């Protein structure tokens, strides 16, 4: 069995047929991490004991012949912004270097109740702020497809570990593209659920009106299976919604004939790299041949999405990160005399440059005299962006776009200019601003052999159509 193409279905059948055990699978994956992750840097913490305890539990179920839960024995990794009880949870920040989570995030608890074997905690940009994983306070992640390149961010470890075959599926978080963009750069599948679909209890908050938890995996079906497990109302997160959770995995392979697919002209404007454009056009042709109706649409406020996003996200971040004050969460500067000293010095020593930049920016746009010009204005334009999508979805069932303007860039290539890095999020931030679900999946390689991605966006709570189209695009490439 080739570990790089192991799917959830293959794990399940080999367990049931006795061809392997959950313990053997966990050991194989832990060994692969020990041997290969030095070069990639996708794990911050390996949770060996937790993995082997869970694997043993699954093996006992198999021995007894009990029915297996949907993720039985599946080796998974968790982005280090999600709490794992009793395990180090850092958010990629020096501030939380020694923080041990006191409880499990709901998404983690649901994965493990479904039988998943948690191998460890995955590297990410500090507090999920970044598009390249170079803002991790510990070490950057290297793209397994070309280790001189970034894996994307902020869920860089979540995407790279799947691409490297260290984990079959992972959890990430997406505030402006942080699942979809690294999935695209590493050649894997990443899902942004509808806002409210997946509980965020136990997610270290970055920007609460934009944060989502979602899965990454090698195939659309695997991502759908994990999504199904983690979705649904959670009494511990009042922003999680009571919408029924349909069978997402069952959407894979269903016919797409008759679906209306929109191509927003603003997403194919100059600035998009030619190879990505033609790779997407090939997939659109495939959908047309499969009976989809392709419609050109307009999302007229697209060009304003980046400024709106970076105003709203940093404003919310400046409030959310106020809790890191040197009192409760492990880090306090030594040699402080006064309370004010303690706040300032602890935050100065604990936060990296990008986090400070965003806190300052967020504080600035919320400050007296600028609130109306920036924050209120951004919320008004956010309403216009939502209106764009509502109008588009009156004409089409789903929207197809690029994920990123280019394939993965080199480490160090964009670290000099924060604005240039922000602009690379152009195709992903809007979904977060309007709360619609989306998926990023591979659509071939460029001439350098780097993966290219395609994004499908859907109506609120219509992950089903998104997954069905993504599955058709995936099949078309086989």
């Amino acid at each position, binding site marked *: 069995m080739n570990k790089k193409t192991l799917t959830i279905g293959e794990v399940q059948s080999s367990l049931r047929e006795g061809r392997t055990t959950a313990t053997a699978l966990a050991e194989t994956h832990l060994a692969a991490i020990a041997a290969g992750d030095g070069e990639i840097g996708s794990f911050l913490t390996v949770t060996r004991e937790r993995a082997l305890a869970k694997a043993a539990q699954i093996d006992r179920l198999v021995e007894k012949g009990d029915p297996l839960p949907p993720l039985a024995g599946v080796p998974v990794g968790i982005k280090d912004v999600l709490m794992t009880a009793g395990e180090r949870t850092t958010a990629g920040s020096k501030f939380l270097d020694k923080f041990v989570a006191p409880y499990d995030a709901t998404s983690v608890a649901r994965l493990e109740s479904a039988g998943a074997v948690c191998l460890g905690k995955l590297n990410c940009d500090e507090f999920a702020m970044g598009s390249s994983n170079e803002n991790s306070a510990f070490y950057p992640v290297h793209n397994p497809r070309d280790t001189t390149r970034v894996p994307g961010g902020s869920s860089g470890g979540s995407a790279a570990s799947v691409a490297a075959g260290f984990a079959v599926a992972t959890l990430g978080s997406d505030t402006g593209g942080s699942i979809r963009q690294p999935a695209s750069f590493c050649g894997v599948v990443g899902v942004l659920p509808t806002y409210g679909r997946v509980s965020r209890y136990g997610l270290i908050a970055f920007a609460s009106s934009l944060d989502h938890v979602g899965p990454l995996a090698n195939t659309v079906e695997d991502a759908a299976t994990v999504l199904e497990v983690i979705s649904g109302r959670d009494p511990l997160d*009042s922003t999680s919604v*009571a919408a029924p959770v349909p069978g997402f995995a069952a959407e894979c392979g269903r016919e797409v004939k008759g679906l209306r697919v929109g191509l927003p002209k603003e997403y194919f404007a100059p600035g998009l790299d030619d190879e990505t454009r033609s790779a997407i056009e090939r997939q659109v042709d495939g959908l047309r041949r499969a009976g989809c109706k392709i419609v050109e649409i307009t999302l007229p406020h697209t060009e304003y999405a980046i*400024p709106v996003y970076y105003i709203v996200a940093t404003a919310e971040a400046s409030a959310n990160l106020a809790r890191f004050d040197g009192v409760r969460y492990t880090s306090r500067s030594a040699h402080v005399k006064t309370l004010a000293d303690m706040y300032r010095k602890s935050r100065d020593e604990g936060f990296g440059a990008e986090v400070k930049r965003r806190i300052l920016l967020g504080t600035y746009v919320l400050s007296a005299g600028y609130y109306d010009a920036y924050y209120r204005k951004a919320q008004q334009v956010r309403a216009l962006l939502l209106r764009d999508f509502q109008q588009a979805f009156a004409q089409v069932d789903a929207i197809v776009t690029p994920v990123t303007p280019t394939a993965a860039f080199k480490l160090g290539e964009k670290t000099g200019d924060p604005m240039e890095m922000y602009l690379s999020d152009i195709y992903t931030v809007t979904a977060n601003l309007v709360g619609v679900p989306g998926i990023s999946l591979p659509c071939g390689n460029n001439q350098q052999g780097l993966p290219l991605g395609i994004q499908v966006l859907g109506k609120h709570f219509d992950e089903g159509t998104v997954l069905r189209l993504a599955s058709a695009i995936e099949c078309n490439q086989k």
Partner: protein
Amino acid sequence: MKVTEKDVTYVADLANLELTPDESQRMVADLNSILGHMDQLNRLDTSGVEPLAELVSSFAPAGGEDFAYAQRADEVRPGLTREAALANAPDTDGTCFRVPKVIER
């Protein structure tokens, strides 16, 4: 609007951040570049547009009071123990978080 070093110092103060002179200069340049880009929002006329602060209400089904933001019954439920809540603190006296002296006499 041009951000000056004075503005950065003021905002850093509001945010409880201490910046070195080098960091402060870098932030002046970065904030000007980023805010310069954000100023393009001023090209849009948004008069009469209601600001969108949260999403769920915009797509909750009609009559779906329980769809989101549902409130639970006001009853005592288990939470973190004191020990667990204090476990990550840099300094405690065993029952409370301990911080530097707040009021000087």
